[in-house]
């Protein structure tokens, strides 16, 4: 999902909490018909000085509660961080598993079966 749009920013929330369109619209406080347009807004940049104004602009345009929108964005960011950490852990485990020395007398996992004569 494209991180440029609000849809991309909220995707971790949708994935983690298993939200469908109706429940996401309900959490945002918009109608399901307006949901695609809300999600097509540009994602407010937390590091930007205009973050608050941008959130308020989106909220005003679609009749949302700005605080709710910020809370959803925060939750989505938290899920994204957890997902990234999980992925990193998985990667570490895979590396650890791959690098494990085989017990004495056993072939290394990468060694294929020897050809039959």
């Amino acid at each position, binding site marked *: 999902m494209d991180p440029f749009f609000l849809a991309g920013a909220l995707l971790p929330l949708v994935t983690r909490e298993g939200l469908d369109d109706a429940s996401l619209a309900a959490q945002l406080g918009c109608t399901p018909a307006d949901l695609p347009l809300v999600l097509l807004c*540009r994602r407010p940049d937390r590091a930007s000085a205009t973050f608050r104004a941008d959130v308020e602009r989106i909220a005003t*345009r679609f009749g949302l509660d700005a605080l709710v929108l910020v809370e959803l964005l925060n939750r989505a960011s938290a899920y994204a961080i957890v997902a990234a950490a999980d992925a990193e852990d998985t990667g570490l485990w895979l590396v650890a598993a791959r690098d494990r020395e085989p017990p004495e007398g056993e072939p290394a996992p990468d060694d294929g079966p020897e050809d039959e004569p």
Partner: protein
Amino acid sequence: MHQNPPGDHPGETDDAGRKLHARLLAGDPTAPSELAERYLDRLTSWLCAHFHRMDPHDLEEIAITLILDLAKRPQQYDPARLGLESYLHMAASRDAANARQGGARRAAYETPLDPVELSERARNSLVSEDADPAELVVQREATMMTTMWLDEHFPGPDRALVQLLVAGERHTVPYAKILGIEHLSELDQRRMVNRAKDRLKKQLRRLAPPDLSDG
């Protein structure tokens, strides 16, 4: 229900498009959404009307991709040169024509029985590699408009026959292949091809701008 975006929908002025573009450039977070709301359906309908032989889902995809791309990179459009809607039409036509050519190229790979002279890549290009970039753009736009025009006026196999005519093809075989009359005698093939060519030439003279009817 949300507030309606400012500006009329059909018949919207270029001024409204320019204002929206300025908001995209300024990073207004609601501008991408308004761009899609104002133009997506209209652009899709326009594409479907002008490229009626293409799959409407492909055309919708082209329109969506174009709108999202413009939302992310609004600097690609210069409002001093063209109205926003005209720009979208032009860019969408180019993308649709490219998609169709891609499809045609794939089809050509699947049925590699066409004579070599039918392959665009096998023929000499009229455009030299060191041509003026501005001229290349003009030529590309002209090609695109010609393609659209041909699609509109010559549905079915006539489209391919006209393309051969315009390209100056003089051999009977390529025409006979398109007409599906290769099983006939050479004389009958020639007669039928000439008949089809005459009919299309008449149609071209009646419809075409002068540069197309010369071929």
